[in-house]
């Protein structure tokens, strides 16, 4: 089966800092039903519609559809997508324990799935498990060193554990003597 995937998982933050990821639906295609026909379209419409709902902020609906999509998931890729999206969705509907279970299942399926580490790090952050969150971020960064999402998640962790206030000071002074030898002109 030829699988065309647009995205795998999503993390959406509503009202908080930044979205770590904003993924479109995963779409799969079934390329042959019989020898005469070829049907292209979402193989798992609940999964893709669920992802769309999560992206647009309809989290309750997104979770509902994605749960259905999980029931109909075929293959490892769809399974990971469904669980990863559920992890994100449960987090957004304030069900961190369910989110954690979903993320744990993804990682059982694929221990090298960096997005799941990112998602689970956010769940741990929500639960106040900062050390576990940091461990997942580090693991995710081992797998995907340049991930912007992991960088953002790490920033959220730092904001929780080590909050800071930005400060800018200004020091006015005349140019030094050697600079004055290269005088600008007063126009």
């Amino acid at each position, binding site marked *: 089966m030829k699988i065309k995937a647009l995205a795998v998982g999503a993390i959406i933050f509503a009202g908080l800092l930044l979205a770590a990821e904003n993924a479109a639906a995963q779409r799969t295609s079934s390329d042959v039903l019989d020898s005469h026909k070829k049907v292209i379209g979402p193989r798992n419409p609940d999964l893709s519609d669920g992802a769309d709902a999560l992206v647009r902020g309809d989290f309750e609906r997104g979770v509902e559809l994605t749960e259905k999509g999980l029931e109909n998931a075929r293959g490892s890729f769809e399974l990971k997508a469904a669980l990863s999206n559920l992890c994100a969705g449960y987090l957004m509907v304030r069900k961190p324990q369910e989110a954690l279970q979903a993320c744990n299942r993804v990682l059982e399926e694929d221990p090298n799935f960096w997005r799941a580490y990112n998602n689970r790090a956010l769940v741990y952050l929500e639960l106040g498990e900062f050390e576990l969150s940091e461990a997942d971020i580090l693991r995710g960064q081992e797998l995907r060193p340049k991930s912007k999402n992991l*960088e*953002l998640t*790490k*920033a959220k962790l*730092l904001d929780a554990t*080590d*909050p*800071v*206030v*930005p*400060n*800018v*000071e*200004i*020091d*006015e*002074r*005349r*140019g030094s003597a050697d*600079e*004055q030898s*290269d*005088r*600008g*002109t*007063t*126009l």
Partner: protein
Amino acid sequence: MLVLPAVAQEGVEPVDTDYDRMPANTVVPEYPEKARRQRIEGEVQVCFDISREGFPRRVTVRESTHPYFEKPAVEAVRRSTWRPIPPGEEVPAIKACRTFRFNLVPVPPDERD
């Protein structure tokens, strides 16, 4: 960016009122979000000329400890102004420099949410 009128500049004083140019509006750059996220602090010294009308010219970075801060510092100077020189008055040409120090102040535990 934060713009401070001359009278409201705490801690920013002219070096020499005889001929040094008095700031009119001092723009304070915002802390770059990318640097804040990564907990990066730094310092930039920007040097420039000041026109008779009070606008900065030939704004350049003389020194910096991290590139993240250079653009905000240069933009802040470019948007700043100084008091113009009255007609007929001559002022020696000098190169002015302004140093911006970007630092992150920890929030004490008892002040956290």
